[in-house]
C-alpha cells in the first residue's frame, strides 16, 4: 500500500472536456489504486467522467493528484504522462 501525491498541469488548450476525461478514465480503470484529483477545493474521483468534468480545469490549471493503493506509483505515472501529453490534443 503506497501513497503518492503531486501536481500536474493542464497543457492542452481546451482543458479537461469530455474526450480527455473519457480517455483518462479508460486508462485509470486498469489500476486498483484510488485516484483523486483536486482543483480549487473540489476533490473528485479520477475514475469518474462526470466528476472530472466538474473540475472546470482550463489550460494552465495546476491540479493536485493523489493516488493510494497497491499500484499507486504506476497510476500516478500514468496520470502525469497523460496530462503532460495533453491527451493527444494541441
Amino acid at each position, binding site marked *: 500500500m503506497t501513497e503518492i501525491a503531486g501536481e500536474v498541469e493542464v497543457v492542452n488548450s481546451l482543458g479537461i472536456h469530455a474526450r480527455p476525461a473519457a480517455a483518462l478514465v479508460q486508462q485509470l480503470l486498469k489500476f486498483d489504486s484510488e485516484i483523486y484529483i483536486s482543483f480549487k477545493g473540489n476533490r473528485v474521483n479520477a475514475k469518474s467522467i462526470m466528476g472530472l*468534468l466538474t473540475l472546470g480545469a482550463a489550460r*494552465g490549471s495546476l491540479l493536485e493528484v493523489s493516488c493510494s493503493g497497491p499500484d499507486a506509483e504506476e497510476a500516478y505515472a500514468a496520470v502525469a504522462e497523460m496530462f503532460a501529453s495533453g491527451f493527444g490534443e494541441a
Partner: protein
Amino acid sequence: MDFNKLPVTRKQFVPVSRLLAHVTHNIDFEMLAGFQGTERPVYTWDVNRPGLALSGYLDYFANDRVQILGNTEIHFMERLTPHELATRVSNMFAFEVPAFVLSRNLTPQPVFLDLCNRNGVPVLRTSLSTDEVISRIILYLTQEFAPETVLHGTAVDVYGVGCLIVGKPGIGKSESALELVERGHRLVADDLVELKRRREDYLYAKTNDIVQHHMEIRGLGIIDVRAVFGVGSVRVFKRMGLVVEIEEWDESADYDRTGLNAQHVDVLGVRIPYLRIPVRPGRNIAIIIEVAALNQRLKELGTDSVKELNDTIMRTNRYQSR
C-alpha cells in the same frame, strides 16, 4: 455482428400478374388485351414512354420496361393509318415488351389491341392521369426490386424509433423485447427479422408472414404477443432508426463512455446509428434501449446532449485558459 455478410437477395423480375394484383388494389386497372401474357417478366423498375419507338426509331428502345401510353402516344397513333401502325408495332414486338399501360381511360386503335392479343402482350388501362400512374408503378416496382435480407434479431418500435436488437443467441434479445412490449412499446419481429431497403436511405423491418408476432421465451415456450398484449402491442412494418448490439460484458473492451464517438453500421447500404450495450447482472437492457431510443429522437430533433454539454465546457475552459 458483421452486417456486410448478410445474404442479400434481390428479385430478378416481377411478373406482370403481380403488378396487376398489387396495383388493382390501389388503381382501377382493367385488362384490354394480351391475357395469355400475364406472366411476362418486368426486369426493371423504370417505365418508358414509347413515342420514339412508335415513330419508327428503335435504336435504344427501352423495351424491357413497362410501356406507358398517355395522350401523346394515343393521339400520335391515331394519326397513323392502321397499316402504318401495324408495321410499327410489329417492329416493336421484335423486342420483348412486358406490358402496355394506358392512362386516362384512353382507347387505342383496334389494330393495336389485335397485335397485342396475337403477341400475348398485356394491355392494362386505368382512369388515372399519366404522371400519377407512372409514379405509382415506379414506386411499387422499386419496392419489389429493393434488396432484402433476413437476420437473427429482434425489431421493436420504441417511442417511434425502430430499434433493431442483435446479439448472440441466449444473450437476451427476446427477453428485452418482451420487457419493452410490457412497457407499452410495439414488437415488429422476433428472432427472424426481414429487412428491406426502400428508396436509397430507408431500412424497413417486417414481420415474417408465418411466424408473425409469436415469440419464443426460454422457460415459457411460444407465446403470441398480439393475443397476450393486444393488437396495440404489435406492428408489421417499421423503419429502423437504431441498431443495438447486446453483448457480454468485456472488461477489456472500450465502451463508449461519453457518446461523443457516435458509431454507425451499414445495413443493406443504409447507414444507421449503432450502439454496443454490454449486459451485466443489474443492468436493465430494456430501459437502456428505451433511453437510447429517446436520445436518438432528441438527436434527430437537433439536440445532441453530450455535444452541447461538452461545447459549454470547452468554451469555459478556453475563456479561462492561461
